[in-house]
């Protein structure tokens, strides 16, 4: 063991430790204060009846809120919608992004312009995107989509007012905004793949599809996995775009769990129940991210 001099001389490691904690301390303190403490409070609230619309009913409720959830059809609906929404947007984003990246890789000149175009959806505020689509793209009669469908003879539809179409519409909006992310990341990853592996494969007479399956896919797997994880997290907590486009409606047609919790808390002012819904969403998010990171590690 190093001979502690007691006085001035700190060992190198001790000095490094002290410095590190001094640097990390403030940020950690802020994080604890702004994320962990509120979560504890959230959990506390979820165990209460806290209804601002009917304040006389407030009080400790134990797990009553969670019990209520089990028999709440709107809850199960929101869970289902969350699953559909998250699953389809992520799959679409990765599929479209990858396909586009593979195609664009072969046009060196088009890449610059396409990259600028791809940046635009990503930097826009999701709420503005939602409003854009609601007003200028999906509005019946003079929205972009309607103009196109009418020109193609498919008629005009209430893209956001029809319960069936609304879900498809919000999925389309989310996919529109975030596919460029997958596209840009995968394009950059594909550009770094070593060309000599492909040349060797060509010499081994591997066809285009085989080259893709056996060389490209495994090599870009880490990037794809990371994109999937990130996009899943975003999809689970998607709020602004849906809120702007449909507000969760019509009815509950696009009310993913996130939105249900919000509406319950701030529209219906039932904060206790809303808190419990948020707790459930949080648990799902943590579980999913844990699983995904585990998968990521296992694959390595």
């Amino acid at each position: 063991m190093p001979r502690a001099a007691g006085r001035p001389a700190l060992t190198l490691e001790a000095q490094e430790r002290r410095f590190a904690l001094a640097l990390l301390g403030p940020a950690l303190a802020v994080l604890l204060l702004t994320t962990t403490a509120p979560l504890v409070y959230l959990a506390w609230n979820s165990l209460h009846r806290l209804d601002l619309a009917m304040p006389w009913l407030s009080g400790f409720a134990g797990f009553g809120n969670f019990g209520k959830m089990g028999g709440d059809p709107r809850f199960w609906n929101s869970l289902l919608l969350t699953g559909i929404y998250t699953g389809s947007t992520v799959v679409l984003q990765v599929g479209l992004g990858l396909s586009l990246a593979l195609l664009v890789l072969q046009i060196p000149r088009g890449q610059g312009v396409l990259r600028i175009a791809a940046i635009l959806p990503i930097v826009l505020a999701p709420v503005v995107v939602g409003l854009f689509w609601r007003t200028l793209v999906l509005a019946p009669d003079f929205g972009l989509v309607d103009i196109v469908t009418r020109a193609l003879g498919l008629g005009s539809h209430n893209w956001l007012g029809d319960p069936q179409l609304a879900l498809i519409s919000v999925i389309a909006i989310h996919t529109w905004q975030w596919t460029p992310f997958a596209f840009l990341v995968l394009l950059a990853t594909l550009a770094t793949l070593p060309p000599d592996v492909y040349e060797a494969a060509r010499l081994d007479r591997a066809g285009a599809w085989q080259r893709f399956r056996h060389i490209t896919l495994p090599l870009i797997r880490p990037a794809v996995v990371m994109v999937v994880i990130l996009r899943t997290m975003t999809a689970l907590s998607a709020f602004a775009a849906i809120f702007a486009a449909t507000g969760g409606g019509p009815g509950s047609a696009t009310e993913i769990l996130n939105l249900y919790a919000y509406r319950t808390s701030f529209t219906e002012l039932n904060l206790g129940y809303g808190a419990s819904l948020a707790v459930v969403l949080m648990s799902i998010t943590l579980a999913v991210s844990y699983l995904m990171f585990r998968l990521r590690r296992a694959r390595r």
Partner: protein
Amino acid sequence: MNGSRPLRRIALALVAGSGLAVWAFPVLWGLLTSFKTERDVLAYPPVLVFTPTLDNYREVIFGASSIVPNLWSSFVVATAATLLTMLLAVPAGYALGRLRYPAKRASGFYVLATQMLPPVGLIIPYYLVLQKVGGLDTYGGLTVIYLTFSLPFAIWLLVSYFEDVPLEMEEAALLDRAGRLRTLWYVILPQVRGGIAVTTIFVFLNAWNEFMFAVVLGGNRVRPVTVAMFNFISVEQTQWARLAAGAMLAMAPVILIGIFAQRHIVKGLTVGAVKGGGRR
């Protein structure tokens, strides 16, 4: 194979072109709409040739429904949040990325975990607490709350940039009698300048575009542009053209940053995606 080369090129160009169209068109359509009168907007078939008018912009900047105060709110909150975040995140990222201390892995996981929290989980306790302490509708309150998503993300992005600096840099500087703090300032920080710039851009973008926290925890005094968008939509009518103008104005800073810092952003996305978690 060779004969279909030009055909293939055309097909690829078409696909790329449609990608471009799909992504750029809505924004361009919005831009176009912002110069139309309300009547022209509602016309069908759509009017491509029309007399442009600046009325919408005039109204949105100088008129009764001016969003200039909202632009100011956005600017103050986003800038303050970005500054505060970077001040905290840069040292933290350095410590996590390069220094040795007890419970390092645990603290790394913690930072990662805080990134994964859906905002709706935080907004309920925030609303209740801020209401009690009178922090609703204040710049301070909103700025601090914005830290919840900015700080973990910034730390995580910065860690990967710090890790890229060769390990012996510190040792060489320490031997050159620089001491820990001067080593960080003179030797390490200059080498992560690019990473800091990219992180700052992302943090600012995220803060500018934030909606949920802004709408719940803001109010009449502090109302960022993202919330002000709804001024143009009411039960009776939607002011299409004004909304377009307002949105263009609101998104102008962000779009400009996007176009000019495009390379940085793409690099940041790739770094963030391949090496660790991220919010966007």
